[in-house]
């Protein structure tokens, strides 16, 4: 029943702890609304047909004043029904507004047309909020310029982000997956393109991601012919945080792996096959959303203006050096491929 109504009403997936309850209240209110209004219209229709004038002469109609008790009962009952909905609704609202004590605090900064996330342990990320499944997360949000609104339709949650204040929003993801974050409060030119992803990882994956993110990024050198450049590439990739999402031992993680990648064909989200070469890698670094690998969330931030051309070519050399390298066991390979349901869909072909 829940699934049927959810599809009919075009509601997104119920991916947070509160989503199911909210949808339940939603169904009762909307169904009661439709029933009440249709009943009223039906009664009006019946009266129209029953009492339409059939003669040309206008008969005198009785003057009927509604008895007071009828009004009190009808409108009192309706008021009680509305207030009952409000009581349930406000209880849920309090639950939404008060974050549990053990929630993981994450700092969110909204800036004209992007979302930036910062974890207390230090790693920061742009456009991708990595959270564990099954544990409450508290977002402490502020804005750098105008009012934005952090809105995750799949969680049924939204909170305006007001500059000069810290607004809190908490949620608990129920299953792994990536969910669209949209800006709901008009904030200017690219208001409709100010999007991010909440990536919910299972507990072990999250723990491992956090360790990888926090561990000092020293990785053993990989075999490569241009020893110097590949070595610089590895250091740059570690320092710039590439290796937090891309692994070097062949297992997919948040981003596709770099091992055995160079020169191969990459199946993309929109069904094409692209050769992984210098051009593709450079374009992926500068405009990651231009071509998205199938099965991976579009969460990679753009490194336009972050990486110098020398660093870009160094990283490419490092990826080339991993082309046929035996997977170095130094980094414990993740338990298995991340079970990613296909993300909602890639955002429209934005400029």
């Amino acid at each position, binding site marked *: 029943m829940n699934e049927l109504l959810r599809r009919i*009403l*075009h*509601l*997104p997936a119920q991916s947070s702890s509160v989503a199911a309850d*909210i949808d339940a*209240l939603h169904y009762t*209110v909307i169904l009661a*609304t439709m029933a*009440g209004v249709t009943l*009223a*219209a039906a009664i*009006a*229709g019946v*009266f*129209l047909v029953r*009492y*339409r004038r059939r003669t040309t002469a*206008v008969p005198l*109609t009785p*003057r*009927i*004043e*509604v008895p007071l008790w009828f009004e009190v009962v009808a409108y009192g009952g309706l*008021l009680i029904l509305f*207030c009952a*909905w*409000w009581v349930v*609704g*406000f209880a849920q*609202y*309090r639950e939404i507004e008060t974050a549990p004590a053990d929630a993981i605090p994450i700092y969110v900064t909204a800036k004209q047309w992007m979302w930036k996330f910062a974890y207390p342990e230090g790693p920061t990320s742009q456009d991708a909020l990595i959270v564990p499944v099954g544990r409450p997360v508290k977002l402490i949000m502020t804005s750098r*310029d*105008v*009012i934005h*609104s952090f*809105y995750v339709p799949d969680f*049924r*949650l*939204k909170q*305006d982000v*007001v*500059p*000069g204040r810290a607004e809190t929003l908490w949620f608990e993801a129920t299953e792994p997956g990536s969910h*669209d974050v*949209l*800006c*709901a409060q*008009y*904030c*200017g*030119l*690219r*208001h*409709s*393109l100010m*999007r991010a992803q909440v990536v919910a990882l299972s507990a072990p994956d999250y723990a491992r991601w956090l360790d990888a993110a926090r561990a000092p990024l020293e990785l053993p050198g990989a075999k490569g012919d241009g020893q110097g450049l590949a070595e610089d590439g590895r250091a740059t990739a570690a320092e710039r945080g590439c290796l937090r999402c891309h692994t070097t031992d062949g297992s997919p993680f948040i981003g596709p792996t770099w091992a055995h990648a160079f020169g191969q064909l990459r199946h993309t989200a929109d069904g094409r096959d692209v050769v992984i070469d210098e051009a593709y890698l450079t374009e992926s670094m500068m405009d990651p959303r231009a071509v998205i690998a199938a099965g991976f969330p579009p969460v990679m931030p753009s490194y336009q203006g972050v990486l110098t051309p020398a660093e870009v070519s160094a990283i490419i050399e490092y990826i080339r050096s991993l082309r046929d390298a035996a997977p170095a066991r130094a980094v414990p390979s993740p338990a298995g491929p991340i079970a990613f349901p296909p993300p909602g*869909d*890639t955002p*429209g*072909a934005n400029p």
Partner: protein
Amino acid sequence: MRTEPDYLRAGRGIRSWLLTRDHKRIALMFLVAVTLALTLGGAFAMILRTKLLYSGPWLIEPLTYNRLFTLHGVVMVFMFMIPAIPAVFGNFALPMMLGAKDLAFPRINLASFYVYLAGAALALWGMIHGGADTGWTFYAPYSTTTPTDVAPVALGVFVLGVSSIMTGLNFIATTHMLRRRGLRWHDMPIFVWAIYATSIIQVIATPVLGLAVGLVAIDHALHMGIFDPALGGDPVLFEHLFWFYSHPAVYIMILPAMGVIAEVVPTFAKKHPFSYKALAYSSLGIAFVGFLTWGHHLFVAGISQFDAAIFGVMSMFVAIFSAIKVFTWIGTLYRGSITFNTPMLYFFAFVYLFAFGGMTGIAVATTSLDVHWHDTYFVIAHFHFIMIGGTLTAFLAALHYWFPKMFGRMYPERWGLVSAALVFAGFNLTFVPQFLLGNAGMPRRYYAYPDRFHVLNVMSTLGAYLLGAALILTLVYLLASLRWGKPAPANPWGSRGFEWRSPSPPPAHNFVVPFDPAHGCYAYDRPPPDEAPAVET
């Protein structure tokens, strides 16, 4: 029998129109201005809907799109919705329903028309000159920091507010002091109660809007920083001031519409209202309790939970008055003698759309559901159900209902029914998909949207085209019947209403023979008074 010319021929030449003090002529001038505003606002809506056919960038730039939805908002809300029924039908019918020869302050009435034109000109010049892209809500700090030209548009809205206050003040004074001898408050038509309640809201709430947009204009021009968070200011306070006006403003829009419906139903059902006191007092109830509910626009804006609780409960109370009205209208049909004319078809459309829109208002006031729906297309569908489904439908009902009295011509009944049905169909095709878009989580004011919302947006755009066409059809045949419509008798609908006891179109001072209030305006249980030429349809 006609001793003096009717008000349309009482004076010749453009001066007699532009400097008139006759409330009926001012009503017609407002009708022309308000219809232009509706056409302009509708055109902007068409462009917006056409852009939304594609999810990516197409047809217009994002900045143009943002300016267009601001234009659509400002023009529709401040230049059509707020003045439409009060300034046109309130001006025309209120004095006649009270038995007065004119409004209390005719000069202020004419001044309010020219202040309306000045405000409209200032706002539209501001739009063409620099074009605000803040939305009609002007939320700080975006409205005070955006490089686009906000000040003239904000001041234009301020001036339109002054015109609204002048109209409200005129109606309150007239209702209190210029009733015909022997016409007690409980003998007055319910339309007068509705316009009176609307005027109270206009007079009390509009100054706060004037202040809010005035502060935005000053902040934008001189950087006074009253809402600037860097100086310690709080943008949410602007939202409080803005919605203190804007929620009662939605009652300014719907109360006159309810008044029109309260006149149409008894006339075509030939029956005394199911409960006169319920209809009359619920208008005042909406006017007063409506001031206590503005916070339900701020549930996710960062107000405290305590405040959200107060506003949530109050919103439930104000909804009861609307429910009272809907039940009483439907009750009036019971054991009536109903004829099915165009105004009645608009009544049925009004009942269904307004009740549905109102109930989705209840759904949004159920605080936790608002967290998901706020600022999405669900809210847009909700308020368009009330504004177009309610106020525009009632405006068209009033236009058809009083058309014979205003112009002395009959409109073509068949065309009326066809266009009403098309308006109803076009409206539903446009806004029911938007409810679903809101559920799916599409935020409002989106230039580009994720692809999953594509199909519903295309449906909504097609509906918008149908609605636009239906409205243009209505305009065409009404203009045509100005010339070629059958001459209208004094009382084409056989109504007991006071305004029908004068010839169509009425003489300059409304009544050849002052009507006898003893014959009630809803006395369908007694034969019609003889002094008015009651013509059977």
